[in-house]
């Protein structure tokens, strides 16, 4: 909310500069978000009267005005606004004036017509936010007088009021807080104390919904003259961003800004019979002041006359019964509406207002009638109104908040420092609390506190402790060290395993990515099953990702567009499996592009990444008994199941060309997604030591020509099963395939394997290796009918 420093000063002495006020409030938890100086520097801007106006000869949107600046000679000004009429008094910036926005005014020609200055809008003078037209001054403004006389300099504080502090949503309320924090005296408090002088409450309104509206009052004020507000009133409300409408509406807004209690004025002559505060009928129509028609439900509370709803309680008045220039008699409403009801209504109707904002945070019951008193006084003064002797009212004001007990020891204990009970008392008393009985229980001392009506947020001891620390200063509490031994949790172990997994791929040159868990509409349009959110805000965040695929493809797309030639990325994160949204931790790898980065003198051959790079990356992961099995999968052109000890833990392969981003994509996109939970599960068992081999190995190679269709796995099985006891490992070290066959008259491929033999207890002799090796060669010839090459 915006606060005028001048206005605050009416109630309390303030530190000299605005920064100090902001610091004081911020330290006490009332954060000042912005400080804006207004009006102070408008020199050479004076009051002028428009005496004639004609269309600009060369521009449709401009007019040429003749103005009286009090000097005796008329001035000619070219003007773009349309909201004035001849006879209006307006601010005139004279040549050489510099406006707060930095604009320097010069005598100049606009579209061929001389202009000797500029007529100004409120925003151009830094007097408000209205940029829609000229600032029309009141008719009693003195021609030629400096504008500064009408609008003395002010500073506007933009203060963030937290939802628990509805009592600060007024100048009086914030001044009361500042008085408590500084110890300065709160002025004019008494003026707003006590019931409206000389008025009695009478029947005349009916409350049919006492839970939603515990108290309602309506004060008839006759013979008002509706018209523009005086300059001071207008300046006040406009300075904090409220537009001036007419004197009655402005007074209502002024009182709300001053005291925090929203009031509303109805045109009394447009009401049919007495007021009834009731629940709306299902489907009841209501035309609100914002010009929109609302269809109401039994969720809504309305103020009604005998025929129709005339206001939505605490939210907005009706268009038909609003105050207009022809209004003669008014009915001034001041009431207490249940915060929860107002909040629900404002939200469901999507109709937040300054009034609902305050009602839903809870207004001060003790301020309700004081506010009508203040408004009626102003209406009498400014609009010549004649308030009735009696105020029609019904219901009961909400009771004062319950007393709260505070144990001084608990205060010390929660804050971690010792504060004298006398200091605690002083602070609480400054905030308007009054101390009741004191009880001494064994070691501790407890006091009971009466809570002021405007501090419903103070409900238990910790709330009072907060008040103490706000005023005492958090900065006076020295931080302490409370170390404690804590056993690691399941989540700790998962975190460590995840880190190890990430680091594994990091060393292989992969970049980690983190994509959004919310995915756009277009990615689920293709029939992808995903949990959708009920209330998306934009097309970019519509559903929860069912897998990591879409996110990684989007990253690939972005980086291909950026011209990269090598993409090796991975992500580890949660996915949400339809239809229940079960959360699983997944781990995905995506590869595309050149096997190496930019061309380099050491790596002459340029190779594209392929399926085997993906397979190798997966094999580098700590997965027990890893195996792959070819499958059909609609997401892949070439797919393999990834298994660990015969359990399927993921799927990978080459994506079909269609699925790859809409770009020229030379080379294949390789992708694999694994269930990280299953991968990580394996890692929990500790590794154990295995003796390092002491005896040397003997290696022998076998080269062979095999039919094209024969797989490496088949050859390997023939070599390894049954296992020769001396055979330690087998490595494929050469593969040559050719369309034309590898030698004249042969069709197939050439494979070469290196076999490594070792006995872990002794050095092998050449002879025994030869025997073992011969057995394997025989087996290959016999079982696979391959041609061995010498």
């Amino acid at each position, binding site marked *: 909310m915006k606060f005028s420093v001048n206005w605050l000063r009416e109630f309390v002495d303030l530190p000299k500069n605005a920064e100090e006020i902001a610091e004081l409030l911020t330290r006490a938890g009332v954060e000042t978000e912005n400080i804006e100086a207004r009006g102070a520097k408008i020199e050479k801007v004076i009051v002028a009267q428009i005496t004639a106006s004609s269309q600009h000869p060369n521009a449709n949107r401009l007019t040429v005005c003749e103005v009286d600046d009090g000097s005796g000679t008329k001035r000619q000004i070219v003007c773009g606004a349309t909201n004035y009429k001849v006879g209006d008094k307006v601010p005139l910036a004279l040549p050489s004036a510099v406006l707060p926005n930095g604009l320097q005014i010069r005598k100049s020609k606009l579209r061929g017509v001389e202009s000797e200055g500029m007529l100004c809008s409120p925003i151009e003078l830094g007097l408000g936010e209205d940029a829609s037209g000229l600032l029309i001054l009141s008719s009693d403004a003195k021609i030629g007088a400096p504008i500064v006389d009408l609008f003395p300099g002010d500073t506007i504080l933009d203060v963030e009021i937290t939802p628990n502090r509805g009592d600060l949503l007024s100048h009086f309320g914030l001044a009361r807080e500042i008085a408590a924090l500084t110890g300065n005296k709160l002025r004019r408090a008494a003026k707003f104390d006590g019931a409206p002088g000389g008025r009695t409450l009478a029947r005349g309104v009916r409350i049919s919904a006492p839970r939603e509206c515990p108290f309602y009052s309506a004060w008839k004020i006759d013979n008002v003259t509706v018209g523009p507000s005086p300059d001071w009133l207008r300046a006040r409300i406009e300075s904090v961003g409220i537009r001036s409408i007419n004197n009655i509406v402005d007074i209502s807004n002024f009182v709300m800004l001053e005291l925090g209690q929203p009031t509303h004025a109805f045109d009394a002559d447009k009401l049919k019979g007495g007021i009834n505060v009731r629940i709306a009928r299902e489907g009841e129509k209501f035309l609100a002041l914002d010009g929109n028609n609302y269809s109401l439900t039994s969720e809504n509370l309305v103020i009604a006359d005998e025929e129709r709803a005339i206001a939505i309680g605490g939210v907005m008045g009706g268009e038909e019964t609003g105050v207009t220039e022809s209004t003669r008699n008014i009915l001034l409403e001041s009431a207490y509406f249940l*915060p929860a009801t107002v909040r629900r209504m404002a939200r469901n109707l999507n109709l937040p207002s300054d009034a609902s904002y305050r009602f839903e945070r809870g207004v001060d019951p003790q301020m309700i009638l004081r506010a009508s008193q203040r408004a009626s006084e102003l209406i009498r003064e400014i609009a010549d109104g004649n308030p009735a002797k009696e105020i029609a009212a019904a219901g009961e004001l909400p009771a004062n908040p319950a007393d709260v007990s505070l144990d001084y020891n608990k205060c010390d204990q929660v804050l971690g420092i010792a504060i004298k009970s006398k200091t605690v008392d002083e602070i609480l008393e400054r905030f308007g609390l009054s101390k009741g009985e004191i009880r001494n229980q064994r070691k501790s001392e407890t006091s009971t506190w009466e809570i002021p009506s405007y501090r419903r947020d103070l409900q238990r001891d910790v709330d009072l402790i907060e008040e103490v620390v706000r005023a005492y200063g958090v900065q006076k509490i*020295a931080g302490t060290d409370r170390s*404690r031994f804590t056993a690691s949790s399941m989540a700790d172990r998962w975190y460590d395993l995840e880190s190890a997994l990430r680091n594994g791929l990091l060393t292989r040159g992969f970049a980690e990515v983190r994509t959004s868990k919310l995915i756009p509409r277009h990615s689920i349009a293709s029939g992808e099953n995903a949990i959708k959110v009920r209330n998306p805000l934009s097309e970019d965040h519509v559903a929860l990702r069912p897998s990591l695929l879409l996110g990684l493809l989007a990253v690939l797309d972005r980086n291909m567009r950026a011209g990269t030639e090598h993409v090796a990325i991975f992500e580890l994160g949660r996915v949400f499996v339809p239809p229940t949204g079960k959360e699983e931790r997944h781990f995905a790898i995506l590869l595309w592009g050149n096997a190496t980065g930019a061309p380099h003198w050491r790596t002459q051959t340029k190779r594209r990444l392929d399926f085997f790079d993906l397979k190798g990356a997966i094999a580098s992961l700590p997965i027990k008994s890893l195996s792959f099995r070819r499958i059909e999968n609609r997401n892949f052109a070439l797919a393999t199941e990834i298994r660990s000890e015969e359990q399927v833990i993921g799927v990978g392969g080459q994506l079909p060309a269609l699925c790859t981003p809409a770009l020229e994509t030379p080379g294949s996109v390789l992708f694999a997604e694994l269930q990280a939970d299953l991968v990580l599960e394996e890692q929990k068992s500790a590794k154990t030591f295995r003796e390092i081999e002491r005896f040397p190995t003997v290696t022998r190679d076998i080269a062979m020509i095999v039919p094209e269709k024969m797989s490496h796995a088949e050859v390997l099985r023939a070599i390894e099963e049954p296992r020769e006891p001396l055979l330690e490992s087998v490595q494929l070290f050469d593969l040559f395939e050719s369309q034309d066959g590898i030698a004249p008259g042969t069709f197939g491929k050439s494979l070469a394997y290196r076999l490594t033999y070792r006995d872990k207890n002794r050095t092998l002799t050449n002879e025994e290796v030869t025997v073992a090796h011969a057995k394997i060669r025989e087996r290959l010839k016999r079982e696979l009918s391959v041609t061995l090459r010498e």
Partner: protein
Amino acid sequence: MHPLEQLRDDALRDIESARDEQALEATRVKYLGRSGSVSSWGEQMKTLGKEERPIVGKLLNETRNAVAAAIEQRAGKLRSQKETEALEKIDISLPGTPSERGSLHPLTQMLDRSIDIFRRMGFALADGPDIDDEWHCFDALNTPPEHPARNEQDTFYLPDGRLLRTHTSTVQIRAMQAAPPPMRVIAPGSCYRRDEVDATHSAQFHQIEGLYVDEKVSVADLKGTLEFFMREIFGPDTLVQFRPHFFPFTEPSLEVYVKSKALKGGEQWIEVAGCGMVHPAVFEAVNKARGDKAYDPEKWTGFAFGLGMDRLAMILFDIPDVRLFAQNDLRFLRQFA
């Protein structure tokens, strides 16, 4: 001088003057080869008298050893000379063989650093689901329906009525439901806000929640913990300020600001966290769900905090736009390798 001594000196001179390995080999053959001049002395020995033989034998041995050693030494020298000549030709300004280094996402780095620090202070990790219910996200956190702070507008809901958690504070409740006090945990995780996306707001972001419940935990402990954390993250000269604020689930509630010359805009206080003392109503809600009085607010107090990881990473790495995190441009990611 004995002729053998003369022979030895000649040999050593020849060895020393051998220019390359071939010349050295020729020299070796000349003296030590089967019919080399040193070897042929072995034949001559047989002709010597009984008295002379051991003396000359000894001399011959010495000569043979000296020549062999000199050859060995000269060979070593020639080898290293040859190596030096070969290496001298190498242009060491040529670029090294590339070895690709991977990179951790800056948010992961931020999370890792943060988690490390809290673990040193004795916090264990806790976890909870991204999809949660209104009770864990609001009601149990002292934010009943119709509370002005219950911002359903800013919350993503699923068709079945569940929601995407708006803060990691849900894990406070889940951790306390699962185990009695004392409790000292942090919970890193994703949160979601139905907010217009711009340079400082994203629909999905990352937080670390902290919760410490014990006997006599105080605001002083809370301050000590977060001051330590902030100085570990932003450097020992970091100034930390706590300002009263409002959150429904803590009382008192505080916002944490830091100021450090090491950071860009070092003269500004920057908001980095929200925290406070766990509200007794939160303990009461947990007790009700547990069906016991494990978290008796008269016996236990606690503090809680929430740290925005995206925001901290932006401050620490001087990243201007939060959207960069989700875009994963490799030119961005590689900067943090």
